[in-house]
């Protein structure tokens, strides 16, 4: 073994060679993305805790199972066709591995039978980069999951998760979140850390789904007024969001391209320069501004205060590669405040039952995020053609992705609805999904027997068993 060590020391003489530097850089990149992947798992721990805490006690386990099984279906589907969509559709149409388009080399690595999808001594990056994108896909699907809890069938959710996580979002990423995407090349569309391409599109998709899914039984009175279903465990929800926030640092970092042997060592997804520190700074100021805006807009409501933090970060993500910290702070506060109002408007005026506020927090904030870039960060060369970011380019992206997200969610859920496969039967919803699908009750008997409380529009608290069966009978009639 000592001979081996000596040989290694002698070989250090060559360490400064360009070839060694490139190899070191590649392996550093491989490690970097690996750790972002590990960190991004916390996003899913967070989503699970967040949604489970928001759910009523009778649906806690079903809600958590939905989040866990997202991973079971999005992972293979993203491998079998999602990565192909990203790598072979950037010009706007599918291209083949032998195309003359400059993205064809990436397309070659995107097909599931590429030999880059296994141990390959010529490429350390393809698989780990795929995994980073896979974690983005889980995140995108999980955004939709919160909006539909407590009444959607598990299987319907899983089919929709495959569609959103492995097809819809990654198509928009190909078009607007890649150096070769047509929105970037032609219009300078700039969404560096995925305000719209992940969050906005998922919010639009979720809106399409809940239109067909309908509200939970009893969410609205017969006069159309709103009842409040109290989260069964608000602590779990708050902890889930804090875990999610931690995972967001991994998400942010994974959105960068690392090239340690080339100054400045980092680039955004469009291969324009930035630094890891600058985006970490913006995410942190995004939380600060978001919490502040959420707190004041909701008059101190804990749920909307912490959701405001998330909305704030999403609102500054699109320009996080170039924003000044103060601009990020102020934009995050504004985004969070607007999101709180949008969330209340969606719930009360539109009568859309989104249990976790995902459509507002991810959808509205996501679209605002790219709008802010057009207003406050125009003039930054974006993409391989170096087209300046502009309000026109941002609006072009919004006009493309809003129908892509909404119509695909609406259409797919409409088909499931027509087939009678979208929503659980009324009896199951009343008794709770846990008792029908899993176990009688997740909690100890003395807790399980307690009636759950809901808040009527006039603020009075009543036992749910006094209200919901009557609302269900009304629905049957």
């Amino acid at each position, binding site marked *: *073994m000592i*001979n*081996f060590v000596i*040989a290694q020391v002698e070989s250090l003489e060559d360490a400064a060679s360009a070839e060694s530097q490139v190899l070191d850089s590649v392996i550093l990149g491989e490690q970097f993305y690996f750790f972002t992947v590990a960190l991004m798992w916390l996003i899913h721990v967070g989503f699970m805790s967040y949604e489970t805490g928001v759910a009523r006690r*009778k649906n806690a386990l079903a809600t958590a199972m939905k989040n866990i099984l997202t991973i079971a*279906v999005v992972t*293979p*589907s993203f491998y*079998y066709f999602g990565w192909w969509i990203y790598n072979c559709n950037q010009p706007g149409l599918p291209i083949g*591995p032998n195309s003359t388009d400059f993205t064809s080399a990436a397309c*070659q*690595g995107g097909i*599931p*039978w*590429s*030999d*880059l*999808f*296994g*141990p*390959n*001594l*010529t*490429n350390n990056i393809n698989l780990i980069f795929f995994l980073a994108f896979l974690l983005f896909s889980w995140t995108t699907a999980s955004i939709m999951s919160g909006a539909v809890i407590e009444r959607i*069938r*598990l*299987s*319907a959710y*899983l*089919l929709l998760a*495959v569609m959103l996580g492995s097809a819809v979002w990654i198509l928009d990423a190909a078009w607007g979140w890649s150096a070769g995407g047509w929105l970037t090349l032609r219009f300078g569309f700039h969404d560096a850390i995925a305000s719209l391409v992940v969050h906005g599109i998922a919010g639009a998709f979720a809106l399409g789904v809940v239109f067909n899914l309908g509200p939970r039984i*009893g969410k609205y009175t017969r006069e159309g007024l709103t009842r409040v279903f109290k989260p069964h465990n608000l602590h779990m929800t708050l902890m889930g969001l804090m875990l999610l926030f931690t995972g967001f640092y991994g998400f942010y970092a994974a959105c960068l391209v690392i090239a340690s042997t080339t100054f400045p060592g980092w680039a955004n997804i469009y291969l324009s320069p930035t630094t890891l520190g600058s985006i970490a700074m913006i995410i942190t100021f995004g939380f600060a501004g978001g919490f502040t805006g959420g707190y004041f807009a909701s008059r101190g409501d804990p749920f909307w205060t912490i959701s405001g933090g998330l909305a704030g970060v999403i609102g500054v993500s699109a320009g996080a590669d170039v924003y000044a910290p103060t601009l990020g702070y102020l934009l995050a506060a504004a985004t969070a405040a607007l999101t709180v109002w949008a969330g209340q408007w969606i719930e009360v005026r539109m009568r859309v039952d989104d249990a976790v506020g995902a459509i507002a927090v991810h959808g509205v904030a996501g679209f605002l995020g790219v709008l802010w870039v057009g207003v406050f960060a125009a003039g930054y060369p974006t993409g391989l053609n170096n087209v300046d970011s502009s309000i026109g380019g941002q609006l072009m992206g919004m006009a493309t992705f809003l129908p892509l997200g909404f119509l695909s969610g609406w259409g797919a859920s409409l088909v499931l609805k027509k087939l009678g*496969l979208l929503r*659980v*039967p*009324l*009896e*199951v919803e*009343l*008794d*709770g999904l846990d*008792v*029908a*699908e899993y176990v009688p009750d997740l909690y100890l008997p003395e807790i399980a*027997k307690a*009636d*759950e409380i809901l808040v009527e529009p006039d603020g009075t608290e009543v*036992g*749910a*068993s006094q*209200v*919901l*069966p009557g609302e269900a009978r009304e629905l049957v009639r």
Partner: protein
Amino acid sequence: MPAVIDSSPECVTNEVGTEDARVEDSADFVLQANYEDCAGFMTFGPGSVYGDEGTAAETAYYILTWLGIAFMVAALIAWVVFEHRHLIAYAAGHIRGGRGGTSA
């Protein structure tokens, strides 16, 4: 002992370098000599050579990939069917008064 399924690509050689490694354990660390003609070497893969990444897969790997796709689709369909039967049975039992509570 012969392998049950030898799925390594042909470009992976065997035994090369092991003799040197026994003599001086420094040589051929991780037995790279066995892989020097091979870039991608996953099971059933095409075994592409250096500088020729992304070459067409062999039949066995196409079959393996399509098996995976078929399993994924079958699992999704099974999820739908299994849950549908389960929920309908529960609702039917509820109507008969045989199970389920009324806790909202």
